[in-house]
């Protein structure tokens, strides 16, 4: 019982201090939220593309919803809702453990963290959560502006759906966080962890559904992509939030499976890595 009370206190203090820290960087975080606009850029491309199928002359593409405009079985409204959802989901699943960890290891801040009776990964987790809380108002504002630009796509998900979408986003964040932790832990063995992170970013960009919903992929590529964690991190929660027809059980099963695989693997590698770790300097 006392352990639980201690944990709760540690969590509260960590979250409060990290939130205060992140609030100082709110301008930075606002800019960062703005740099996640790629899905919205892709939205305008895909909707324009869907309109082209209806009116090859291309007139009046920007005005109002054209009935019947569709591409690969997705209507204009579905496309718009999907990409706005993907934008929101992306904002709350971003992880940057690799960069924070690399800097901490390089500057020698990791050593004192290892001495504390608290797993350093908790510290990173709370700072991510605090950063997301700081980001929330900017994301809400940006999503609002974009809904104003495509008012015909405005929707409010059913309460049950919304709850499932939030749950899926939280799980997706956990998976993405663990993938990044895994890459960060490789820092113990190699200085190339950030190069590996670049490859991870690329896979995330093209396979997660940020640039195109997976429904538009050729079936073989789509099936191959679904064996990676990436589509479950963006595509699945975004479809849930957009209120699309989908097999929710399969999505949650995939997320749970990735969590079950990544969590023990990360912790094991962390323990092996810390044993190898030798601090630099005096």
């Amino acid at each position, binding site marked *: 019982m006392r352990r639980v009370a201690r944990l709760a206190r540690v969590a509260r203090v960590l979250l409060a201090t990290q939130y205060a820290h992140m609030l100082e960087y709110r301008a*930075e975080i606002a*800019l960062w939220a703005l740099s996640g606009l790629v899905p919205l850029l892709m939205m305008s491309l895909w909707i324009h593309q869907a309109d082209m199928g209806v009116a090859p002359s291309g007139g009046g593409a920007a005005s109002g919803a054209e009935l019947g405009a569709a591409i690969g079985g997705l209507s204009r409204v579905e496309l718009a809702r999907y990409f706005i959802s993907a934008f929101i989901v992306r904002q709350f699943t971003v992880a940057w453990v690799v960069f924070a960890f690399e800097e901490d290891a390089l500057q020698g801040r990791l050593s004192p963290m290892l001495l504390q009776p608290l797993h350093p990964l908790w510290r990173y987790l709370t700072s991510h959560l605090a950063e997301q809380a700081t980001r929330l108002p900017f994301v809400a504002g940006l999503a609002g502006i974009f809904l104003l630009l495509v008012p015909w796509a405005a929707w409010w998900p059913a309460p049950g759906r919304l709850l499932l979408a939030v749950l899926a986003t939280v799980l997706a964040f956990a998976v993405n966080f663990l993938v990044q932790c895994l890459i960060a832990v490789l820092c113990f063995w190699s200085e190339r962890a950030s190069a590996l992170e670049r490859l991870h970013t690329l896979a995330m960009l093209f396979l997660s559904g940020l640039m195109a919903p997976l429904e538009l992929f050729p079936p073989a590529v789509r099936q191959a992509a679904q064996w990676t964690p990436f589509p479950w991190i963006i595509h699945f929660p975004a479809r849930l939030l957009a209120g699309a027809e989908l097999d929710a059980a399969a999505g949650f099963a995939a997320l749970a499976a990735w969590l079950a695989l990544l969590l023990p693997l990360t912790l094991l590698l962390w323990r092996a890595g810390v044993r190898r770790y030798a601090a630099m300097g005096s």
Partner: protein
Amino acid sequence: MGRYLKTLRRFWGTALASQTEYQANLLFDLLAMGGNLAGSLFMIGLFFQGGRGLGGWTWPEALVVLGIYTLLDGVSSTLLRPNLSRIVTQVQEGTLDFVLLKPIDSQFWLSTRTFALGGLPEIGAGLLLMAWAARAAGARPSLAVVAAAVVLLGTSLTILYSLWFVLATTSIWFVKTWNATEVLRATLTAGRYPVTAYPQTLRVLFTVVIPVAFLTTVPAEAVLGRPSWPWLLGGAGMAVLFFALSRAFWQLALRFHTSASS
């Protein structure tokens, strides 16, 4: 002029010498480049499913745009990112003062001090893709077309450089600008596709406000053998305007620069 060329040779000679020490990085750079190119090709391929074309561009024509985008991305990783991200560090650590004291143009020093080998393959790949796709699209290179293409690629690079430099300059006031460059990078990804593929409002925005159209689409038109005087003049005007802006902005920033240690 000769002094600047000589300095440039020394700068890049030392950069080359120090980078051949880290050969494993090059492998990862190549892998990342391959992945990026494969992903971009796949995405453009998705747009062409069902034979709709992309904003009136055929498949090889759209690949010319992608080739130019890859070229610009390569130049960013070779020259712009390594140099301009250092301005931030120099402001923080106060070493900017040493640069300002040198008997050489400070903007030149800051923009050319080093280069990253890792971006060169991307420049090569971009040029190859551009040339191959232009041939596949049936472009017949005449002297006038090549000249127009070279001029417009030059204006595109000048605009790109000026945008980066202006953003890096803001670090004099804000110190941290890493996220601002991320916003620029995200916006420039719009240049992967011909500007006509976007809806009307964005097309205007990308031509007049953020000159994404002048970065890839306009040079691509010239490479494909359909350069036109209005675009040529527009591109040149934009390049001169943005370059002058970057210089004026740097002079203004320097007046606000108070050295870190005093």
